[in-house]
């Protein structure tokens, strides 16, 4: 009897819960779809973000490269200009020190012409100042070359302003020297430094 009652009760309960179960199933499917849509949205956002970051990375790399190559080109131009200056007739040794020497500066000639040179040629060369610095043999301190102390000095500056340029090139700095009454060629090691006009 008890059993019959129970089974009846169970049947009634089953009968009552069927539509509600259908509703729950529908809800569940809807929730799953929402979840899928959310998942896709997040995925799309992540992919977009990834490509945006990658794009930014590419742009940064590209622009830093452009800056670097511009700087390199500027440096190369300055070094080549320094070499060109050293080999120009106003500076070069010519055949005075035996044979055509490359990257050789006639110090005597530069000392004679230095005052006029910057006035006449600054625009032609496109430089604001030129400095020739003796490197070896090394002298203590910075001694600016004037007609009174030449050649016991180590800096020939065509204009009195200080030069802070790092654009330089190694040159041979030659002059005539009298040793025990004989005239000898004396070549030392120097650097030609230029202050570069940006325009």
């Amino acid at each position, binding site marked *: 009897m008890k059993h019959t009652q129970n089974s009846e009760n169970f049947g009634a309960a089953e009968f009552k819960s069927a539509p509600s179960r259908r509703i729950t199933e529908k809800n569940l499917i809807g929730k799953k779809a929402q979840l899928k849509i959310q998942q896709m949205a997040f995925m799309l956002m992540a992919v977009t973000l990834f490509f945006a970051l*990658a794009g930014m990375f590419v742009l940064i*790399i590209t622009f830093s*490269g452009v800056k*670097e*190559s511009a700087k*390199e080109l500027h*440096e*190369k131009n300055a*070094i*080549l200009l320094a*070499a060109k200056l050293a080999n120009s007739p106003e500076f070069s040794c010519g055949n005075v020190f035996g044979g055509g*020497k*490359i*990257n*050789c500066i006639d110090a005597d000639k530069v000392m004679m012409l230095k005052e006029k040179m910057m006035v006449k040629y600054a625009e032609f060369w496109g430089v604001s100042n030129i400095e020739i610095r003796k*490197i*070896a*043999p*090394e002298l203590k301190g910075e001694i600016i070359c004037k007609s009174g102390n030449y050649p016991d000095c180590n800096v020939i500056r065509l204009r009195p302003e200080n030069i802070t340029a790092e654009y330089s*090139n*190694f*040159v*041979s700095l*030659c002059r005539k020297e009298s040793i025990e009454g004989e005239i*000898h*060629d*004396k*070549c*030392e*090691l*120097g650097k030609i430094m230029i202050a570069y006009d940006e325009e």
Partner: protein
Amino acid sequence: MKNKKAQEEIIGFGLIIIIVAVILLVFIGFSIKKGGEKETVESYEVSSFIQAFLQYTTECRDINEYLSVQKLIFACKESEKCLDERESCEVLNSTLKEIIDASWKVGEDRPVKAYSLEILAGEEEILLMKKGNFTRDSRGSSQNFFKGGESIDIFFEVYY
């Protein structure tokens, strides 16, 4: 069904990794190419340094003149002596050391970490000069010249 989905996801992940790796490789390739260009610019400085020091007048004198480094190299190869009885190789060594130390200041806190200079006459080594801590970033240049069929090769390298 679940397994297939997991496989698809793994394939997608793998594809993304491959794409990222390819992009990275392209960047690395570009940066290496740029590094090579820089070397050409800087070795130009080293090359002009070699040209300039070859013309440097040394304290070694023969009957006619004070010898340049270039002439002193040949004198050293022939084991000749200077007019003041000093060995030409000794003068060559001290002169080059003085020139290089004045031009390329070497030190841990300086941009130039080390240098090496090698002068060869054919296979024979005339001079080898090294100083500092050698790094992997180096710029160098070489120069060769002839006298009476004899070839002299000069290699100079600066390490940053």
